[in-house]
């Protein structure tokens, strides 16, 4: 077993780990060193470690053994608090249900994992159902009163008329058509290339190679060709088309108009949007907007205008170069 010195050391290490989230919180607030997602992740890790530490203290330091039958609801409630309260912004109910479903399954596994823990878990239940003393009888009566009550409450809840908006299973990235017609020119989405993705030599720039231009200043006198295109794309984004009104200054989908729309505009800074798509997909969405969404994109909820009516093909391609450059993502390719 551990001696006192080792115990103290272990405690210190655990405290340090617990303090980490707090430190990074302060750091995040002051300098923006980490974003909300990373911050929340660190908090989560801290909480899990904290819970383990707490459990360890209760069991080994204080010498209290929590019965298995009680451990299960405690774990369940902790998981619920974690997903419902601590995880911010709030996750939708469907996701919460899935997470809690997994937790239910795993907690059940945890309680029945060895024969001893199964006996410790099921023993009290069996005793409640079978034994003949007053305590067991009373809990039996209580259980069989509460159970129908719960079912009745659930039924009442289900029958209650609801006035909330219906759930939408919206397809965020509907499948694109094989080819589109923009300004009387056929663009085959599988094979088309962005004409403004060019390196210093004027040749097509392989996806991934543009990373050397990330963070570069496109407004100095002598800029590489690629950054010139980026600048012109930026002019379209902030000037000609005014994409930033909806998609935001940081391309995070939080422009001044964004919350007037339902659903709100796409967040390009998220790794799940343009980073997952081919440039031609983005071209299709910009050129054709909401009106050209395919059948599967029901309920066609998109406020995106068909920009081909306002921009030239070249301007659309350039703004796409700008979007990838600004977010630091690479378009999807298959090579």
């Amino acid at each position, binding site marked *: 077993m551990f001696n006192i010195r080792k115990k103290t050391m272990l405690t210190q290490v655990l405290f340090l780990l617990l303090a980490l989230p707090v430190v990074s919180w302060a750091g995040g607030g002051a300098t923006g060193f980490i974003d909300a997602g990373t911050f929340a992740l660190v908090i989560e890790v801290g909480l899990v470690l904290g819970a383990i530490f707490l459990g360890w203290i209760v069991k080994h330091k204080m010498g209290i053994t929590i019965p298995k039958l009680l451990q299960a609801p405690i774990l369940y409630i902790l998981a619920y608090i974690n997903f419902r309260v601590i995880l911010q912004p709030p996750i939708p109910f469907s996701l919460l249900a899935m997470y809690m479903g997994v937790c239910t399954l795993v907690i059940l596994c945890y309680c029945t*994992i060895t024969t001893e823990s199964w006996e410790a878990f099921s023993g009290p239940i069996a005793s409640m159902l079978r034994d003949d003393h007053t305590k067991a009888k009373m809990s039996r009566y209580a259980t069989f009163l509460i159970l129908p009550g719960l079912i009745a409450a659930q039924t009442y809840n289900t029958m209650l008329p609801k006035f909330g908006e219906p759930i939408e299973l919206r397809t965020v990235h*509907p499948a*694109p058509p094989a080819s589109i017609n923009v300004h009387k020119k056929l663009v085959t989405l599988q094979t088309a290339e962005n004409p403004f993705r060019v390196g210093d030599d004027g040749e097509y720039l392989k996806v991934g190679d543009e990373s050397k231009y990330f963070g570069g200043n496109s407004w100095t006198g002598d800029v590489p060709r690629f950054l010139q295109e980026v600048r012109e794309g930026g002019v379209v984004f902030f000037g000609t088309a005014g994409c930033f009104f909806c998609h935001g200054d940081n391309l995070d989908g939080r422009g001044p108009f964004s919350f007037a729309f339902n*659903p709100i505009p796409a*967040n390009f800074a998220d790794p799940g949007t343009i980073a997952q798509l081919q440039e031609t997909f983005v071209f299709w969405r910009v050129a054709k907007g909401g009106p050209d969404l395919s059948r599967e994109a029901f309920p066609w909820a998109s406020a995106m205008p068909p920009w081909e009516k306002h921009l030239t093909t070249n301007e659309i391609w350039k703004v796409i170069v700008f979007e990838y450059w600004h977010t630091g993502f690479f378009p999807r390719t*298959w090579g």
Partner: protein
Amino acid sequence: MFSVNNKKKKIGALILLSMIGMLLLLPFAQMDVSAQGKEEAAAEESAEPAEGEIGSKGKDKQYGGVNEFGIVSGPPAPEMVYPDSYGSYGDYQSRTLLWVSNQQHLYFGSFVLAVPMFVFVMELIGATQKDRKVGKKFDDLAHEMMKISLTAYSVTAILGGILIFTFLALYPGFFGYLASIFKPVMHIYALLFILESGVLYVYYYGWDAMNDGNGNWKWTHLGISCILNAIGIVLMVMANTWIGFMMSPAGVDESGRFLGDIWKVIHTPLMVPIVIHRILGNAAFGGGVVGAYAAFRFLSSKTLEEKAHYDWMSYIAMFMGILNLIPLPFAGYWLMREIYAYRQQMGITLMGGLLAWVFIMQATMIATLFITVNYYLFQAMGRMPGAERYYPAFKFLLAILVISTISWLTPHTLVMTPAELKAMGGQQHPVVGNYGVMSAKNTAINTMITTTVLTFCLYQRANRIITVPWAWKGNCFLILLFAMAWVNILFLGIYGYFIPANVRIGLSVPQVVSTLTTLFVGVAVNTKMLKGSKEVAPIRWGQMSVRGAYALFLLAVAFTWTMAVMGYLRSSVRLHWHVNEIMRDNSPWAFTNPLGYAGNINSMNVLLFWTMLLFVFWLSSLAAKKAPSKVTADAGEAVPAASH
């Protein structure tokens, strides 16, 4: 052994089989003749046929380069018109009828193809075992499974008949077109079934006759098993070519005219990955079903001896299932990659678009599979004295599994009310949104598999004390091997967010190899360490907790449910096409089903399959009841082994 009389019979059977084999070549001969005939006819007509007519040059839909052009040898795909080209039963969805009959046939088909694979391995292990007692144990296990397969074989044939009639009755236009292109393949397919049945019966009924432990007859018997499996796989590949053609047609021109080269029609872009994925899936499914059978008998048997036998059998079956389950996700990723490369549209429909939620269903099932496997191993360790020292590790392994599962399940497209959307501030959640992409999924599944391997290593050690002098070195190395694998998998997962998608896909390779390293090197080192180890006490076979047996049931049901879901997914990704981009589905049922409906039909399919399978299991237990009298007869040594 065979008597002289049997020899004649055997020669007769061989002649019959070879005649069937010759019959198989007939369609080829017919093909050649027709091709020659066409050439002659083309030579006679000096004038070039008009474009699109039979004999003219046609551009292949898929192939490029030297294979781009072919000779038009068939009519274009017919335009489907409702109701003329379709049959129906009133307003009921014809598609659902076809769906159910197809799924049932596929279940039983994979069962009768998978069990011989399983049986082959078992028989091989039995024959190569030095300890003849253990060898006989494996041999009996194989024989028992083959008996079940035999009953299931006739069910498969019946269901195949039902499927064909459903096709002819409800989708005559489509089936006609498919048959016109695949006619030689279809005939060989049907004729191969005769051969398969012949080999199967020789294999099964010759079991006792050819059973001389590990002598020459046994190896001949194993050779027959090999042929049986080869035919089975060829059959499956042939059936796969049809769905491959429906998804990614090749060897035809834009309007569906056959271009004369049957190989191009077979070898479509998605054919090879589909075949690999299905073979692996079949083998895993076989293990799962055999495991469920063993669990069923384990729960229903009364004596400890029987319980011990089925406990052991369930372990072997589970092991075989898992061995094939582990490479399955990787084969799946490969298939997905090929689908994306074939049509981006199809890939997006599957992964990010219309059908993305079906993938979440599948993810749930895969996670269930891995958690169940670990749970089963934990339960199985309960019957191994000395495993107590590993109990504290269980909860941590479970914790790793649950964290992986949660990130594995997080969907990319969330289901939410508009109010929830506003509260969240966008379609993607800033925290959990990160787990909706491929980088996170790859990391999660690899972590889960590595954890399963670790659990298995603990299982191997459970009732043993290691005595090799380098034990501390081995332990040290194993800890590092697993820890570093996790570090690398996690590192690559995070790194994946910062690089282009085409490189990111490549990252899955070192991730997979990390996982496989723990599997092969880890298990090998572990096994090596166990050499000459002391047993705490022998495994108490038959004393596994009932929870373990139920876990095996869950495992098998999860397998079948996954098959149903993924089959639905693979089929419905064609959307409103019978044959992708060539033949449009113009029936009123060409829409994509709501998730709930698809889920219900799949559940019903699973239920139906298991009901029928339990009937088959029950039948076999009826036959087994006769067994005791046979055993006593054998023990008396008066009756020769060949009792059939």
